């Protein structure tokens, strides 16, 4: 079956613009995660969705970052008023129910803020 997909694969934007990154998880996976991979910070957890529960937003770096998950499937990560330090690869992962089930990662979206 299809894996986790993300779009766009690359996004170049100007400082101050808003961007939206999309993640399509594996069908049937109830858990969805966003991570950020940057040269300075490595791989960082951003936000976690599980079913209809309130998301765990503890990893979001600032209030310019937000995410939603519609219908328990597709998720969108939004960054408002982008800054150069937001440049990174944004990775999405999904997993089936269970506290230790394998997370399947998408190919990522490379965001470059000029």
């Amino acid at each position, binding site marked *: 079956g299809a894996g986790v997909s993300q779009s766009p694969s690359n996004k170049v934007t100007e400082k101050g613009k808003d961007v939206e990154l999309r993640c399509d998880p594996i069908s049937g996976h109830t*858990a969805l995660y966003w991570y950020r991979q940057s040269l300075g910070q490595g791989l*960082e957890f951003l936000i*976690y969705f599980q079913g209809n529960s309130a998301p*765990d937003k503890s990893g979001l770096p600032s209030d310019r970052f937000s995410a939603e998950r519609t219908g328990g499937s597709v998720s969108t990560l939004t960054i408002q008023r982008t800054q150069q330090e937001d440049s990174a690869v944004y990775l999405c*992962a999904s997993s089936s129910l269970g506290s*230790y*089930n*394998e997370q*399947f990662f998408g*190919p990522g979206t490379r965001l470059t803020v000029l």
Partner: protein
Amino acid sequence: AQSVTQLDSQVPVFEEAPVELRCNYSSSVSVYLFWYVQYPNQGLQLLLKYLSGSTLVKGINGFEAEFNKSQTSFHLRKPSVHISDTAEYFCAVSSDTGGGNKLTFGTGTQLKVEL
């Protein structure tokens, strides 16, 4: 809080030689441990995981890792590497604290296999 340390940022090795990539973790609760591999311009792929039971875990592509609770380590090994193993390897930890198994990653080790 939990953390992962990968002391080696780069490991060069000749083809068919053995390799060990080191990983140490810190956590106040029981943990689950993972090794992921990332090939250039690709996402992360799970190599192996330790959840419980036998401390020697075998994964894909001939890799294995041993969980050592007393040394808080989870080193990754392969007895004979191939050129195609050139990639970045990430050790990660999660715990069952009711908040989902969000992963805490190490900084990664770049494995470069040379002829």
